[in-house]
């Protein structure tokens, strides 16, 4: 029987919902137990949140001052130590997980399965390659621990259960390097919904034309209570910050409603929205590839259509 260790992602003392999605993937492997590992400077609030997730057997915490920031070089040796006795280590496929999981896997001498989108059983998984243009079935080698990152958009967050799992402090004999130091995080804090978990997302592309023009995208999003995303071209042109990029190399999202405005629909962008419930495309070019995947398409000038939309929304 398998025992799965899920690595908790957190920021500012709060558990990232991607952790509960990784727990959902873990449940799909029908393991004997699922433990969540919290590596933090102060773990109390985070571990309490993790303990509520349905399906979690135990929460293990390692509180060390060095764990104040998510530095892969510092966290990976602790994950590798904590992984002893487990059959699987699951980490959310966020920039946090993508950074730390392969480092832990290499320390464990194990291959990693990136972006797991389906779990057939404890040794068989599905993942996308070629920007999602092919899906492969991967079989693991039972001689090695399985390290996997879990593709956010493929899994619902496991809901909170009735009871809380016990929290246990763990002491790990892991030497931590001093060669990697945190300097700072510049984050565009906003009151808008989080792009990765929002039910509605409005994205703008190069067609929006400028940083100033992007205000109309923000305004529409606020009216809808939606998060805001962007294409690579919009980010590259400096209209919006990089953490808003949706796509193969940005965020992979699965909102109920996705509106692509002034976005052509390059395969690298479409990878990021394949699992969206309903896709709306607004583009002045009737031939734009985005219309191939849109549930509702509207051809026209976005500067004319958006104000009309706002009026129609009332």
């Amino acid at each position, binding site marked *: 029987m398998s025992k799965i260790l899920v690595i908790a992602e957190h920021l500012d003392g709060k558990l990232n919902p991607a952790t509960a999605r990784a727990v959902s993937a873990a449940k799909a492997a029908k393991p004997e137990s699922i433990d969540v590992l919290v590596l933090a400077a102060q773990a109390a609030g985070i571990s309490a949140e993790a303990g509520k997730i349905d399906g979690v057997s135990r929460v293990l915490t390692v509180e060390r001052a060095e764990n104040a920031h998510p530095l892969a070089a510092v966290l990976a040796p602790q994950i590798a130590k904590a992984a002893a006795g487990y059959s699987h280590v699951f980490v959310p496929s966020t920039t946090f997980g993508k950074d730390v999981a392969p480092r832990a896997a290499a320390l464990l001498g194990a291959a990693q399965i990136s972006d797991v989108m389906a779990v057939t059983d404890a040794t068989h998984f599905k993942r996308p390659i*070629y920007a999602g243009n092919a899906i492969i079935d991967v079989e693991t080698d039972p001689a090695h621990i399985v390290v996997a990152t879990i593709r956010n958009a493929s899994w619902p967050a496991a809901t909170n259960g009735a009871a809380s799992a016990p929290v246990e402090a763990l002491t790990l004999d892991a030497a931590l*390097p001093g060669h990697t130091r945190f300097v700072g995080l510049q984050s565009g804090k906003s009151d808008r919904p989080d792009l990765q978990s929002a039910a509605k997302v409005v994205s703008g592309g190069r067609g929006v034309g400028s940083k100033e023009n992007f205000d109309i995208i923000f305004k529409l999003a606020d009216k809808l209570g939606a998060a805001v995303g962007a294409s690579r071209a919009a980010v590259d042109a400096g209209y919006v910050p990089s*953490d808003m990029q949706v796509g193969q190399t940005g965020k992979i999202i699965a909102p109920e409603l996705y509106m692509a405005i002034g976005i052509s629909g390059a395969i690298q962008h479409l990878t990021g929205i394949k699992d969206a419930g309903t896709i709306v495309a607004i583009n002045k070019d009737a031939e734009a590839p985005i219309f191939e995947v849109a549930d509702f398409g*509207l051809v026209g000038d976005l500067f004319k259509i958006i104000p009309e939309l706002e*009026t129609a929304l009332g």
Partner: protein
Amino acid sequence: MKILVGYKRVVDFNVRIQVKPDGTGVVTDGVKLSANPFDDIALEEALRLREKGVATEVVIAAIGPADLTAHLRNGLAMGADRAIHVVTADAVQPLTAARTLLKLVEKEQPGLVILGKQAIDDDANQTGQMLAALWDRPQATFASKLDVAGDKATVTREVDAGLETIEIDLPAVVTADLRLNEPRFIKLPDIMKAKKKPIDTIEFATLGVENGDHLKVTHYAAPAKRSKGVMVKDAAELVAALKQKGLL
């Protein structure tokens, strides 16, 4: 300081990948192959560090079949000083690639290794992190800005929450994100010059790399297709349609 750059060849990013009907792979015959776009960015960054006088030599390395020579010549034409070609007919998985690169690192003793953050064929996003772990050195993944000063580097990283800055001691592994730079175009005279630059070939088998290809791919499938939707004529019709679906 010497910089080692990973330079993988992949199916060009513009190609629409087709899965073979029998599910044994994707169609790569006759398909355009190019440098992994992230590796071009990695190489460009190394070249800029050499132009600034921070680096003295830029070495590109690729693992792959005998016909990689033309691909490596492109990297040399872009400006790399020399190339290392680890020859193997079979594609290797990231753990094996990292173990192979570690052998090259031990031999070359670079002050910095720059790789692309992911290769756009298997989209694994692992090799740099694995190499850093095996080498027991720092990693700065998803870099959008790299400043080297003495035996340290300050790196800005594109993370989900925004831009993170870390300081690392060298030697270290940096993986390039899209906005680190814009790679230069190769000029014709450089292609001629590149012909004289050395390419060392090493048979993979002679490196004694422990096999890390633990994963077996048993089937390839095309993704579920989204069905084509409908065109609406104006904003009012769109809002009505979304309301009917319960989305507004």
